[in-house]
C-alpha cells in the first residue's frame, strides 16, 4: 500500500451476468468465474475493511449516488439476459462509510447523495461483482454510481473523494471497477459456445489495454481514456471513465503490480478480471498534458457567455 492511499489493491471486472449465472456455458465464462474466485480468496486473505464498487452499469443523473442501505435485499433480473435466470442478493453495506464518502465528495465540490431505499434496483454489474467477490458478506461494501453527464474532472474528483473518506475513517479497502473493455455486444442471440470478441479491432485494443494493465500503467491508461472511448466504446455515455476513477482513488501513477487473471468474450464484449496492487516500481517515461484536478468547479456556463 502506498503512503497516501488506503487502498490495498484494485480490481477491474466485467458487468455481464454469464460468469455468475451460466459459467459452464462456455470455457471463457468458466475462466472468468475462476478469476473472480481467485480475487474472492485474495480479498478474504487481505485485511480490507470494506469493498468499494464503482459501477458503469449504475448511471445517475442527479449528481453521484452512493448506496447506503445497510442491508440491501432483492432479486435482480437483467434487462437483456433475463433468460439466464434471477440474481437474488443480500448485500451488507457500510452505511457509515457511504455517508462519509458523500460528505467527502461534497467537500470537493461534487453534488452527491446517498440512497437508502428498500427495493432500490442495484445494477447488474454490482450484483455480479459483489455476489462473486464477497458472497458471504464477509466485509461490507459501498457502491457508487457513474453519472451519465460526468466527464473527466468530476470522475477524477469522485475517485479522490473515495480515498479521502477512507483516510477520514482510517479504513482500508479493496476497490472494484465494474466495466467491460470493448463494450460492443452482438446484437443477435448467439450460441454461447461460439462467443468471441465482436471484431479484430476491439480485440487488438483490448490486448493493448491489457498490456498496460499487466505493466501496472494505471495513470497511462487514465490518460488514454478519451482515445479508448473513441476507439472501442459504444457511445452510450460521454466518456470511458473507469480508469479515471480507479487512478484517482488508488493514486495517479504507474507504480503497480498488474495481473490479468482472465480475458474473455462476453456476448462479443471484452471481459477481463485484472488486479492492480500498489508497488514501488514504476513503468513508462511519459508525461501528460491533461491537468490534474482536486476540486470540481461545476459547469463553466459556456452556453450563456458571449451572446450579449
Amino acid at each position, binding site marked *: 500500500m502506498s503512503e497516501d492511499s488506503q487502498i490495498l489493491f484494485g480490481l477491474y471486472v466485467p458487468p455481464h451476468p454469464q460468469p455468475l449465472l451460466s459459467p459452464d456455458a462456455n470455457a471463457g465464462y468458466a475462466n472468468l468465474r475462476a478469476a473472480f474466485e481467485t480475487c474472492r480468496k485474495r480479498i478474504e486473505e487481505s485485511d480490507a475493511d470494506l469493498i468499494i464498487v464503482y459501477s458503469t452499469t449504475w448511471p445517475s443523473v442527479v449528481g453521484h449516488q452512493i448506496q447506503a442501505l445497510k442491508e440491501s435485499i432483492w432479486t435482480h*433480473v437483467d434487462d437483456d439476459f433475463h433468460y439466464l435466470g434471477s440474481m437474488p442478493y443480500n448485500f451488507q453495506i457500510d452505511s457509515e462509510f457511504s455517508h462519509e464518502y458523500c460528505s467527502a465528495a461534497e467537500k470537493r465540490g461534487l453534488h452527491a447523495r446517498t440512497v437508502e431505499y428498500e427495493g432500490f434496483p442495484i445494477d447488474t454489474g454490482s450484483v455480479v461483482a459483489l455476489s462473486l467477490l464477497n458472497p458471504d458478506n464477509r466485509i461490507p461494501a459501498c457502491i457508487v454510481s457513474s453519472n451519465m*453527464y460526468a466527464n473527466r474532472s468530476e470522475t477524477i474528483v469522485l475517485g479522490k473523494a473515495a480515498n479521502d473518506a477512507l483516510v477520514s475513517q482510517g479504513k482500508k479497502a479493496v476497490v472494484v471497477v465494474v466495466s467491460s473493455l470493448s463494450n460492443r455486444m452482438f446484437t443477435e442471440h448467439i450460441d454461447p459456445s461460439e462467443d468471441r470478441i465482436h471484431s479484430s479491432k476491439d480485440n487488438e485494443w483490448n490486448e493493448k489495454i491489457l498490456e498496460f494493465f499487466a505493466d501496472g500503467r494505471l495513470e497511462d491508461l487514465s490518460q488514454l481514456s478519451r482515445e479508448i472511448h473513441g476507439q472501442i466504446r459504444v457511445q452510450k455515455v460521454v466518456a470511458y471513465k473507469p480508469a479515471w476513477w480507479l487512478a484517482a482513488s488508488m493514486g495517479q501513477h504507474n507504480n503497480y503490480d498488474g495481473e490479468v487473471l482472465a480475458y474473455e468474450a462476453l456476448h462479443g464484449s471484452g471481459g477481463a478480471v485484472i488486479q492492480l496492487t500498489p508497488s514501488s516500481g514504476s513503468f513508462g517515461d511519459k508525461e501528460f498534458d491533461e491537468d490534474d484536478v482536486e476540486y470540481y468547479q461545476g459547469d463553466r456556463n459556456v452556453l450563456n457567455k458571449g451572446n450579449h
Partner: protein
Amino acid sequence: MSKGEIVLGCLAPHPPHLVYAENPPQNEAFSEGGWETLRWGYAKLARKLKTIDYDAIVIFTPHWQTYIGTHFLGLPEFKSKSVDPVFPNLFRYNYDLKVDVELAEAMHEETAKAGIITKMMRNPDFRVDYGTITSCHLLNPSWDKPIVTISSNRNSHYYSNEVMIEQAKALGEACMKAIEKSGKKVVLVSSHSLSHRHFVTEAPLPEDMSREHIYNHSQYVWDMKIIDMFRNGQMKEVVDIMPEYTEQTIAETEAGGLIWMMAAMGVPSYPAEIYGYQSVIGTGNCIACWDPNNETRELVL
C-alpha cells in the same frame, strides 16, 4: 373476427415526478404537488381514454433498454415495487399489472417475421420499468386494462439515429400487422420526453416550481418546432428531421418510440391533440395524442 385497429396513439412522457406529485396510494414518497400543466393535461387525456372502447395498451419504453433485439413482456401478471434508480427519493411505486400475453406473442411473431431480433421475457422476477408504470398510471390510474410492454433496442447507440428510425419503422409496421390479425382495439403509447438534457442537481424540495425551467433555450425552440409540426399533421416531416432533432436536443426520441408509433399508425397527416408542455428537471415534455377518428378528434390546446 373483425380486423383489429389502433384507436389512439399517445405521446406520454414518464418523469416519475408526475406520479410523485399526484400522491397515489401506490407510491411511498409524499409531495406537495408540482408540474400541474402536465398533470392536468394527463388528467384530460385520461378522461378521453375513458370514452374510448379498447382492449389493451401497448407501450414502448426507453427504460427497458435492450441491446440484443426487441423484447416483449411475456407473463400474464407482474406484481412488485418499482424504485426509480435515478429519482428513488420520488418514485417507489407498488405495482400490480396485467399483460395481454396473447397480443405480446402475436407482436413477437410478426416482428420476428419482419427480420427483427426479438425475445419474449418470461422471468417472473423481472421488474417492470418505471417508464411503463409512470405513463400507464397517468393515462389509466385504475389499471383496468392489460398492457404490452416493448423494450427499446438501442440502435442509436450501436449504429445511428438513422438506423434507429429504420428499425423502429419496421417494428411499428410489424406490430400493426399483429394488431390487425388479433381483432383487438389497441391504444399505443410512446413513453418519453422530447428534449432530454437534465439538470444534474435537484432542488431541496423537488416540487419547488420556482426552480423549474427548460435546460436551455435551444431545447425549447426545437421542442416548439416539433410540437408545431404535431399540430399541423406534419408527421412525415417529423420523421424526416428526427435524426437532427434527436442529436440537437439529446431527445429521448433516440429510443425510437415516436417513430414506432407513427409507423404503426401509418404516419398520420391529421393534427395531433396537444394536452400540455412543461419542463421537468430541465427536460421538455409534451403530452399529445393522435386520434384516427375524425369525429372524436379535438382541438385541445
